[in-house]
């Protein structure tokens, strides 16, 4: 024993001996690597071990949801609900992340839990920029992982054709009261987005939309007042005049989503359709009808607006165009995707109360009308789901009007006209949506739509950047679209 350790108690001597050993131990590189490997292995084993149950930070359900909530009372009247399971079951709901889709469902989930405590909903969110191809891959591989999926209506035709979607019509037909309510409150042109055919042709619903969307006209009320503009532009020539009037002194009178590809095509479509144009005016088995007067007018309208475009417009998607509105750089957008981002104080702190929203302009020609491009996502039950009955109950719940307040408060954007009217105080742009939905025009319900819009959008970008004249761009676009349809087998 070392001399300096004498006089220490046994425990202290142990500690002293260990310290001495530690002090005299040499660590070489080999020993260091071995120790690091052991440490890493231990950490990995702990991380991969069973998860500790998460401490619930949420308040008890009875504290957040009243027992006489309208949704709880309404659910008792619904017909066709399966018997409450004895043991908890979990449904997986795949959602695009964020407002309109994920957040409203999380917001109304506590109400669902009060009604069906043994049916848990696991909401999985994926950024909207990634989710659509992933849904396509999941359905192509017949994944049974998901019970409810929220998908863009543009993909429904091919998913239905591929047999990936459960027919919800039979579920809906069981509850006549609920069906009548849905049919009367959601515009038929929106419900048709989720049918295999239009209702008039005997179409059946394969999805239901708790969400609706279309392009809207956005403007700064204070800037309009200051410029003495008392009437909103009704036609596209009016919109050009207004854009010109409002541009100057660091302020721009126009912005839109003009990034090359489907964004630019969306912008073009609203103007094209508003002039009476149709992509396939003679049906899908005939060449497209793009290279027509309405097409030229649409491109010329865009070209006429370009001198008043805020910097960044040429390459903008919705986030960037909305940022131009929010920062005050652009004060007018005749056709824009957006919504609560314009009128919420949290997202638009400077101008949220100065934003006006209305239906998009119409064409000035004889066939002209307001024709905003339709958006929106709908819920469907994959054919491969193991819980289709309960999945339908969750969809029914999300599309019911009794949860409207919580839905809107959690940044939902309903497809029901009654909710858009009732909750205009929460989201001031809802009346514009209610006015626009019946006029909105859907994208083509064929699998090639995405590819067609990408190709066409390149030509729109060529026009807006001055690389091609509108007539030449339309001719080239027509040829490219014809080729795609020919390769897809629509005609020889």
């Amino acid at each position, binding site marked *: 024993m070392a001399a300096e350790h004498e006089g220490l108690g046994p425990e202290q001597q142990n500690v002293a001996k260990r310290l001495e050993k530690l002090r005299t131990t040499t660590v070489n590189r080999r020993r260091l690597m071995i120790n690091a490997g052991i440490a890493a292995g231990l950490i990995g084993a702990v991380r991969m071990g069973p998860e500790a149950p998460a401490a619930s930070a949420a308040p008890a359900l009875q504290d957040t949801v009243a027992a006489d909530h309208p949704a709880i009372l309404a659910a008792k009247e619904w017909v066709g609900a399966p018997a409450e399971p004895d043991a908890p079951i979990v449904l997986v709901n795949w959602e695009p992340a964020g407002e309109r889709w994920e957040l409203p469902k999380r917001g109304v989930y506590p109400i669902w839990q009060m009604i069906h405590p043994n049916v848990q909903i696991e909401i999985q969110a994926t950024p909207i920029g990634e989710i659509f191809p992933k849904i396509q891959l999941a359905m192509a591989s017949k994944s049974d992982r998901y019970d409810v999926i929220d998908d863009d209506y543009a993909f429904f035709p091919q998913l239905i054709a591929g047999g990936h979607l459960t027919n919800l019509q039979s579920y809906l037909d069981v509850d006549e009261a609920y069906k009548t309510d849905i049919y009367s409150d959601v515009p038929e042109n929106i419900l048709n987005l989720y049918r295999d055919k239009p209702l008039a042709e005997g179409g059946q619903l394969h999805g239901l939309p708790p969400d609706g969307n279309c392009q809207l006209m956005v403007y700064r009320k204070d800037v309009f007042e200051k410029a003495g503009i008392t009437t909103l532009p009704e036609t596209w020539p009016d919109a050009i005049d207004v854009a010109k009037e409002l541009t100057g002194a660091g302020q721009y009178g126009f912005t839109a989503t003009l990034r090359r590809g489907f964004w630019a095509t969306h912008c073009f479509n609203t103007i094209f359709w508003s002039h009476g144009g149709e992509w396939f005016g003679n049906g899908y088995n005939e060449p497209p009808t793009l290279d027509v007067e309405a097409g030229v007018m649409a491109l010329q309208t865009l070209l006429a607006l370009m001198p008043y475009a805020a910097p960044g417009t040429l390459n903008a*998607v919705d986030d960037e165009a909305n940022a131009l509105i929010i920062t005050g750089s652009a004060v007018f957008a005749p056709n824009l995707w957006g919504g609560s981002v314009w009128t919420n104080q949290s997202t638009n702190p400077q101008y949220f109360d100065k934003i006006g929203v209305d239906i998009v302009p119409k064409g000035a020609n004889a066939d002209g009308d307001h024709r905003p491009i339709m958006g929106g996502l709908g819920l469907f039950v994959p054919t491969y789901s193991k819980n289709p009955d309960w999945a339908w109950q969750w969809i029914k719940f999300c599309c019911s009007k009794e949860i409207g307040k919580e839905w809107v408060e959690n940044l939902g954007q309903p497809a029901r006209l009654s909710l858009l009217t009732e909750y205009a105080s929460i989201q001031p742009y809802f009346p514009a949506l209610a006015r626009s939905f019946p006029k909105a025009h859907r994208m083509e319900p064929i*699998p090639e739509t995405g590819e067609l819009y990408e*190709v066409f959008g*390149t030509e729109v970008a060529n026009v807006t950047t001055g690389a091609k004249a509108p007539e030449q761009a339309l001719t080239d676009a027509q040829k490219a679209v014809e080729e795609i349809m020919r390769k897809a087998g629509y005609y020889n």
Partner: protein
Amino acid sequence: MPPVGDAGVLPRCGDGRQCRPFPYRLEQGRRAAETRRVTEQMRGANEVSAVSEAQADIGTALPRRAVTGRGQQRDWIRWAFLLPTVIVLFVITIYPMLNSLWNSLHYFNLFTPDDKRFVGLGNYVDLLRNDPTFWPVMQITFIYTIGVVAVQFVAGLGMALLLDRAMRGISLLRTLIIIPILISPVVVGLTWRYMYEPWGVLNYVLGRFGIAPIEWVSSPSYALISIMVVDIWQWTPFVVLVLLAGLQSIPREVVEASALDGLKFRQHFTRIVWPLLRPVALIVLLIRMMDALKVFDTVYVLTRGGPGTSTYVASMYNYVLFFGNYQVGYAAAMSYIILIIVNVFAIALIFALSDRQTKDESSDTVEIERLTAADAASAA
């Protein structure tokens, strides 16, 4: 009279004129000639040793790989260690590549997977002959590649030459200069995107000098150049690093000899440094060219191929073909076309740079041998 051909001494040609001062080539040529003589000697010796080796086998002339139990066991152990790597390589590289190649021979839309049909080289023909977007996209890609690689190489070489000296703080400077390549390309793209905003720092600085704001990434006239600037900023340090290593591997004696001979910088660089640096330069040009041809992340973050189609590069178009158009077969064909183009460029670059080197060396070797023989004769 000092011996002819020693480093630092001007060799004399047969007619008494002074030859061009290429001491390094003299030494290289002498070594090449010496090596050739020794090799020929050894070739003769090898024939003898091969027979001896065969006779040294037990009894009979056995093949080189003895098929004994011990050898089999060693082979099995070797494969056992290699197998996990081979499996991983097969699963994540070889199989996907083969699957992609197979898909490229089909019309395959992800929305209509049941409609998948074999079209042979149809996708390739459509891309090369019928696709109105393909050649404009390739043109932009080539302009981008040539622009960034040329600037990176010239700037990188200049900086490497400046850094290849002993001076105070040079180590710190070398460390600081590589910081851009340590940053993720996506982060670089996002940072530059904010700098390029109409209200970003670049326009702010321009404003201080009374210059109107420039639409760096919003205008078709400037967008491609703006992206090239980002790439040059990030990857020139890589070129500097590699070329600096090449410069530092040049024998000091050669450099000192050229200094003693009184060579001007231009002669020193073109006759001494560049020939020795050429193999390293080839590598760095190859790497940068292949990266530039495949650029995606910077374009995606900054412009997504816009405004219009001014920055619509090949990889971006390939991305849109799959993730936008869901055309699996067509996108796969585009991938292979990009692969072929990258390989063609690489082979062309290797051929262009290495062929000259071989010719120069062989002509120098002949000249040096002639001089050596002449000197030996005169000495005798």
